[in-house]
């Protein structure tokens, strides 16, 4: 799975904020940050900041709004990485 590495790096980031640890253990592309991981919506901005730091990218407001699932987040991260 080409995304496995990205998912693992993302998992390490969201593990700080996820309140549902079971869903965290079975994290996959379809996982939703709020509905599955039970991340407090206020913490989504913290996830984004951590992602920026981890991947050394800058995520603009438009991209930020899309990052509600693992799949969407990976898409944003890959797009930003390819711009580098």
């Amino acid at each position, binding site marked *: 799975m080409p995304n496995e590495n990205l998912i693992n790096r993302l998992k390490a980031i969201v593990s*700080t*904020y996820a309140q549902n640890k079971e869903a965290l253990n079975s994290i996959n592309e379809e996982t939703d940050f709020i509905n599955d991981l039970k991340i407090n919506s*206020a*913490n989504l*901005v*913290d996830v984004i*900041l951590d992602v920026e730091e981890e991947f050394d990218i800058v995520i603009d407001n438009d991209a930020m709004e899309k990052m509600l699932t693992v799949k969407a987040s990976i898409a944003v991260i890959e797009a930003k990485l390819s711009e580098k």
Partner: protein
Amino acid sequence: MDNRVVITGLGVVAPNGVGLEAFESALRAGRSGIRFDRELEELKFSCQISGKPQLGEADIAPYFSPLELRNFNSKGIMYGVIAGMDSWKDAGLPLSDNEEPFWDYGLVFGSGTSGIDRFREAIYDIDALNVRRLGSTVVLQTMNSGVSAYLSGKLGLGNQVITNSSACSTGTESLLMAYERIRSGKASVVLSGATSDSGPYIWGGFDAMKVCTYKYNQEPEQGSRPMSSNASGFVPGSGAGALVVESLDHARARGARIYAEVLGGHVNSGGQRGKGSMTAPNSIAVQRCIREALLHAGVTANEVDLINGHLTATAMDATEIQNWVEALDRSGTDFPYINTLKGMTGHCLTAAGSIECVASVLQLHNNFIFPNINCEVQHPEILKLVDSEKIPRETLNRQSRILIKASFGFGDINACIVLKKYSESDA
């Protein structure tokens, strides 16, 4: 009919003791929590001593989740949460562990400023054009009601949740507000308290006003000297105190231990008229506040056994004693015993009233009077008014029935509360 109101839980984070046991032992021993403060020295403060609660990471960890501690830099919220949670546990009350909050349990928790260190970090980030890097925690840690928001969430409180702010009278006022809400039947339990941040960004303004002492930087424990002949200004302090306030009926129904009864009190303002100003009290208002508190509590001045004063170690101490003498119409050997905690803790500002109310309740419940430390030679103006023995310098093992406590604050505001030792035969 109005509810009777009692105190059933206590929590304290004070410079001379964290937790009830350590705090009471410090009170009885007359132990100072004032230490040399290297940070104040480095920043070239005139006053380089302070009172800060001694807390290590292991003391803090049980009260916060790892997520809450991420980018956490609000000492006021930290002190308030620890004192508040401790008082709740001390009262034997549960946490709400289901979807529904406790609709009849509320909170009045005072704060002067919140998370000033976090605020400072945020200002640096903003000025460096990094507002987007602030993350989610700045608002929660720097809003004045932050301490109340943290506490009510942890406990699951569903009644009124409010932060009061009235300078150095805040803590005593919060107890009175809790009392009023329960007396009127709008809540059955209210957590009352107040907290105050530590550090140079809280204390700098006071240092600049020259109201803090600068004469005891080499002898920190002797620095805070209320009522003494060589008092030379207050020592800045910090911390939090918390009291669980409850209707007598509710407390009895659940078999709670009752520390003391709140008989009543009063808050007022001198309106910055007469001799009152932004920073000095209008004595007419102070005396009126004390008299109204007694009247409201249904207690005569002659019944008062013990006064816990505001008494910060400035030139105002003698004025305060004069006000007590006139308000109670008692002087010399007829004056009640009087003490102040500030010799041991410094002036804990917003939190002072709450920490001192905890000390007051402990004295009533456990039959002692803590000593006024650093008051070997009492101020001559004070000795003209009251007998020297009424200002104890040693711990007295003595039962008090009625205790009156007052706090005064910038803006010419006053709060005064009357507490009574509780015994089963009162019920």
